[in-house]
Every structure is written in structure tokens, then in C-alpha cells.
């Protein structure tokens, strides 16, 4: 009952005109960003953070806007998968498998509306899962001392590369690079400058928003410049959408699939290092094994459209659980959302639920509202989004670059930050070429300082004894999971990734 009354309070917060409008705007922009190939949820949210920030939005409205973008992007990715056979973002990759064949059979409208419903089901159940699971996780997290937190951060880094990276050395490199960048600036505990090389601009440290926008958004512009597929997708293809409501029998046929994959996707989302791409992948594989008796999967089976869509949207909701309850994000986009919270001076983690219940429950209520809005936007208005898909990258990418510059300049008003952002953009491009994941870098710059603070606190409390880090059963458990999580992908990662890549060789290291 306590949950329901908190949720009621949340709805009171979310149901203001400003917040509803922001949620609608976020859903709309998110769907567009998800649908456009080249702009995924992480870049989408990254570009909008500085704007939400400079517009002076409060914590709750800013979060409502950006999580609506996040959910929206998860919905939007399917549109180009189905119509063009080009995934709008990575999690939508599996939707191509059956979505495009359906569209070729003249059932594009049915595929779009069915996948919209599947997205809704996945996201709806995942939001309930978030409500039920997050407070339980908070109870565990309250037992954590500084040593356990340090182990938890280590766990996050060691598992983040996870299944999406084939080379754990490169994930470790990325995490260390991010942590190293976080160290730049004046040490908060002793007041000595570190790695500043006498540059006054660096005394405050590097702004992680600058790093995020540079790594995600600008590097994307460079990728497009390199390949100059500026004209790709611009050829006006015949987009026959057809009827926009799936027949009842089709929904009925897909219901068990949607429910099963929602659960599976949610679990994949909660686990560190998995994220939405894996959620949709295992959902599709499991359904194929379970119900594909006639071998219709891959040839336009509606269940093959419903499964990955319910799975990836449920995983998107699931990934919010560790981010909100522990302050440790499990995927790329939630890492970016963590940056939002940190730049609003809110520290996620167990105390968030007791200190800022308005933020948490307002956000959860907003997720429900956004989900209904997205269902409404995505079924009747899907035609509008398909027309926006025709915007070629040669027009889109300059806009993306310029909006990124405006956002960063708006925060600090300094050209120096713009130069740092360009530097990060180039670095992001090189690292993506070398197949180094970018998400651990972001997570490192975000969490580096609090990771170090916890380390120093733990050891100072125990009079300089470093073994205090492995002193409690909880800490040992976390270390064990971390080490298993680091080693396991070396064995299985290649297999899973290989299967995911079999279908589509995508350039880009942005997962989620």
C-alpha cells in the first residue's frame, strides 16, 4: 500500500501542465531520434542534457523530459527497422529480422502497430518491475559501507564491457581512461591540483557533459563525414504502410510472446552490462526456440516482431533499476541519465529514495504517462515519423553538430569547453574505429571521483589497512561477481556477439 500511495504522490507531481508538455516533447523527440539511423538513445539524450540544464529546468522536469526521450527512442528504433531494414538504433537490430519481411509482404502497418503495442507492453511491465524491485534493492544497498561501494563500482566497470564487447582488454582500457580523466582537477580531500598541467580551466575538472556530447554526438558526425553516406536513405523509397491496426487474432497470437519477453527483457536490463540490445537479442532467440515450430521466424512472423520490441523496451525500464537504486547504471543510456542527475546535484543511490522521493516517484509516474503518450503517438501518427525518416544525414548531421555546440556553449559560455568537446569527438571517432567501447569511458568520468572517495574513506576508517576492501562477506560477494562477470564474457562473449553481428555488421561502439 505504501508503494501505491507513493506512486499517487508521484502522479500529483507529474501531472502538471509543464511536466505533461515536457513528457510529450520528450516522447516526440525521442521517437524521432530513435527512428533516424545514426542517432540512438544515448546520443539523443546526450544532446538534450545541456539544453535541459541551461533552460533551468528543475530536477524532476529535466528527468521527465530526458527519460521520455529514452523511452521514446526505444519505441522509435523499430520504425526504420521495419520500413527500411536499417535499425534506427542498436536494440532495434533484431526487429529487422521479421519486421522488414512483414513490410515486404505489404503488412508494414500491421508490423508497426503490433511492434508499438509490444513496446508498450514491455515498457509497462518493466515500469511496474522498477517500482517493485528498486525499493528492495535499496534495502540491500543501505547495508553498504564505503568498502562495499568501492567493490560495487568495480563490479560495474568489470561487467559493463560484458557481452557487448568482444575484447575485455579494450573495455578495461576504456574504463581506466574514463577514471583517469575524472582525476583531472583539484583533489577534493587534500586540495592539491592533479593532472592540470598548470591550465586554470582544468582546476574544476573536466565537465562530463562535454565529454559525453563530444564522444557520442560529434564522433557520429565524423563517422558520417568519413563514409559520406550523406545520401543514404535519401532515395525516396516506396513506403506502403497499409492498415494501422493489427487484427485481434494477431494480437492474441502474440500475447504470450509479449508477456514472456517482457519478463526476460526486464531481467536482462537489470543485470549490469547487458542493456537493451541484449534484451532484444535473447528475447528473440528464446521465442524462436519456444514457438517457432513451422520455421516462420525470419520470414515475417508477427511474433518475431513482438518479441524483440517487448524485450528491448522492458530492458530499458529494467536498466533504470540499478541506476536509481544503486547509482550504478547498467547500460550506456542510463549512464548518460546518471550524468543528468549528477549535474543537477542529485546523487542517485539508496538515499535518493528517502531524500528525494519527489524525484523518484515523479519520474516513475512520468514513465507511465510517457508510455501511454508513446502508444498514442506511435500508432496513429506513425506516418508522420516515417516522413521524418526521409531527412537525409547531409541535413541532419550539421544540425546535430550545431545543437551540440549550442548546448555546451550555453552551459559555460567558454570556447575552451568547445575545444575540449572537439577533442573528445576526435577521440571518440578513433576509439570507435578501434572497437573500443565508449560507455565505460563515460561511466569512468562520471563515477571516478566517488569511487576514489569511497576507497579513501574505507581505508582511512580502517587506519590505512588496504585489506579492509575484502573484509565483509558482502564485499567478497561483490568482488566474486565482478571477477566472474569479467572473465565469463571472454568465454561466451564471442559467441553471442558473433550471432548478433551475423545479421548486420554495424559500425559503432555505442550500445543501447
Amino acid at each position, binding site marked *: 500500500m505504501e508503494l501505491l500511495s507513493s506512486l499517487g504522490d508521484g502522479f500529483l507531481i507529474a501531472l502538471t501542465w509543464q511536466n505533461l508538455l515536457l513528457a510529450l516533447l520528450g516522447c516526440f523527440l525521442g521517437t524521432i531520434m530513435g527512428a533516424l539511423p545514426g542517432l540512438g538513445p544515448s546520443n539523443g539524450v546526450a544532446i538534450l542534457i545541456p*539544453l535541459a540544464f*541551461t*533552460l533551468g529546468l528543475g530536477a524532476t522536469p529535466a528527468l521527465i523530459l530526458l527519460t521520455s526521450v529514452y523511452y521514446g527512442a526505444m519505441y522509435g528504433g523499430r520504425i526504420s527497422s521495419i520500413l527500411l531494414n536499417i535499425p534506427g538504433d542498436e536494440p532495434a537490430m533484431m526487429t529487422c529480422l521479421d519486421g522488414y519481411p512483414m513490410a515486404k509482404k505489404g503488412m508494414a502497418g500491421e508490423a508497426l502497430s503490433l511492434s508499438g503495442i509490444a513496446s508498450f507492453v514491455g515498457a509497462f511491465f518493466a515500469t511496474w518491475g522498477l517500482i517493485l524491485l528498486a525499493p528492495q534493492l535499496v534495502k540491500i544497498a543501505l547495508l553498504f559501507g564505503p568498502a562495499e561501494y568501492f567493490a560495487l563500482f568495480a563490479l560495474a566497470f568489470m561487467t559493463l564491457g560484458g557481452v557487448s564487447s*568482444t*575484447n575485455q*582488454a*579494450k573495455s*578495461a*582500457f576504456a574504463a*581506466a581512461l574514463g*577514471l*583517469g580523466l575524472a*582525476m583531472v582537477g583539484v*583533489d577534493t580531500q*587534500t*586540495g*592539491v*591540483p*592533479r*593532472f592540470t598541467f598548470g591550465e586554470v580551466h582544468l582546476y574544476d575538472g573536466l565537465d562530463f557533459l562535454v565529454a559525453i556530447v563530444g564522444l557520442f554526438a*560529434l564522433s557520429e*558526425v565524423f563517422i*558520417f*563525414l*568519413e*563514409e*559520406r553516406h*550523406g*545520401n543514404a536513405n535519401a532515395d525516396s523509397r516506396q513506403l506502403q504502410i497499409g492498415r494501422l491496426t493489427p487484427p485481434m487474432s494477431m494480437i492474441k497470437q502474440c500475447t504470450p510472446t509479449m508477456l514472456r519477453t517482457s519478463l526476460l527483457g526486464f531481467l536482462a536490463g537489470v543485470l549490469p552490462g547487458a542493456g537493451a540490445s541484449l534484451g532484444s537479442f535473447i528475447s528473440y532467440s528464446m521465442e524462436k526456440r519456444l514457438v517457432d515450430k513451422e520455421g516462420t521466424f525470419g520470414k515475417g512472423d508477427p511474433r518475431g516482431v513482438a518479441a524483440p520490441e517487448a524485450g528491448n523496451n522492458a530492458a530499458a525500464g529494467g536498466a533504470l533499476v540499478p541506476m536509481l537504486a544503486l547509482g550504478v547504471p547498467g547500460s550506456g543510456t542510463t549512464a548518460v541519465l546518471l550524468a543528468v542527475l549528477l549535474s543537477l546535484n542529485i546523487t542517485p543511490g539508496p538515499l535518493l529514495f528517502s531524500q528525494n522521493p519527489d524525484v523518484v516517484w515523479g519520474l516513475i509516474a512520468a514513465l507511465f504517462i510517457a508510455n501511454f503518450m508513446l502508444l498514442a503517438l506511435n500508432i496513429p501518427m506513425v506516418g508522420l515519423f516515417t516522413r521524418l525518416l526521409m531527412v537525409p*544525414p*547531409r*541535413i541532419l*548531421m*550539421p*544540425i546535430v*553538430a*550545431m*545543437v551540440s*555546440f*549550442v548546448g555546451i*556553449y*550555453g552551459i559555460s*559560455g567558454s*570556447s575552451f569547453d*568547445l*575545444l575540449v568537446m*572537439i577533442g573528445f*569527438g*576526435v577521440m571518440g*571517432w578513433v576509439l570507435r*574505429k*578501434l*572497437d573500443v567501447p565508449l560507455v565505460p569511458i563515460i561511466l569512468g568520468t562520471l563515477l571516478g571521483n566517488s*569511487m576514489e572517495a569511497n*576507497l*579513501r574513506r574505507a*581505508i*582511512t576508517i580502517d*587506519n*590505512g589497512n588496504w585489506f579492509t576492501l575484502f573484509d565483509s562477506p558482502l564485499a567478497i560477494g561483490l568482488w566474486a561477481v565482478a571477477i566472474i562477470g569479467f572473465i565469463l564474457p571472454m568465454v561466451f562473449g564471442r559467441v553471442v556477439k558473433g550471432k548478433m553481428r551475423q545479421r548486420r555488421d554495424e559500425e559503432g561502439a555505442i550500445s543501447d
Partner: protein
Amino acid sequence: MSDRIFGIFGVLLAIGYAMAAFAIEESFLSDAVGPKAFPLIIATVLGLSSLVIAIKPDQEPHWPPFARLAEIAAAVVVMVLYAQFLPVIGFVFATALAATYLAWRLGSTVLGAIATGVGTSVGIYVIFHLVLGLSLARGPLGF
């Protein structure tokens, strides 16, 4: 080969980082760990992972031909110039020029690129400055 160079670069980076960490001046009031320890741990991880990358390289990535690299370098130069001149000539002009350049290099026709550039610049100015009230760089003409 790329991974080997990258790995060696990473090792050098780690050594440089560790040296910079040793150079941190300690304050006389310090906690048990001090400001150097964590950066040194990071340098170790950085160095070890780079070493592994250098010893066990992945498949060679697909590098673009020289012309495309020059393309990216030129875009970087334009962006740096944009950052430098933004406060001098004002948001609208700087943005229009930079966006025109990018649109042109991404394959627009010259006229199309100019239209994209001006449209982007004026569009952002109207939405973000006039409607949303974000402060943008002012040029000598006030915009």
C-alpha cells in the same frame, strides 16, 4: 597492426600518467591514502590492458583512404575555428558558416548546403534564443 600501435600508445600513456601522478604535490594534511594512490591504480590497469591489446591484437579495422582522413581533419579545423570565432562574430554568422561547410562536405549541393546552414543557424537562434531564452554568443551586430 593498428591495435599494436594503439597498445604501445596506451602503455606510453599509462607511463606518462603514472609519472604525472608521482609528480602530484602532497599536502602536509593528508588522509591515509593520499591523492596519488588511486591514480596509480588506474595507471596500472591502463598499462596492463594496453599491453594485452598490443600482444593480442584484434582484426585490423577498416581505415578510410587518405582523402577521407583529410576530410575529417578539415572538419576538425572548421570546428576549432568555429569555437574560436563564435564569441567574435556572433552565433548566427558562425553557426551558418560552420553548418554550411558540414552540409556541403556531407554531400549537399552548394545551394542546398547554404540553405541548410542558414536554416540551421536561424532555426536554432529562433527556437533556443527567442523562444526558450538561452543566451547565445553575441556578435558585433547583437546576434
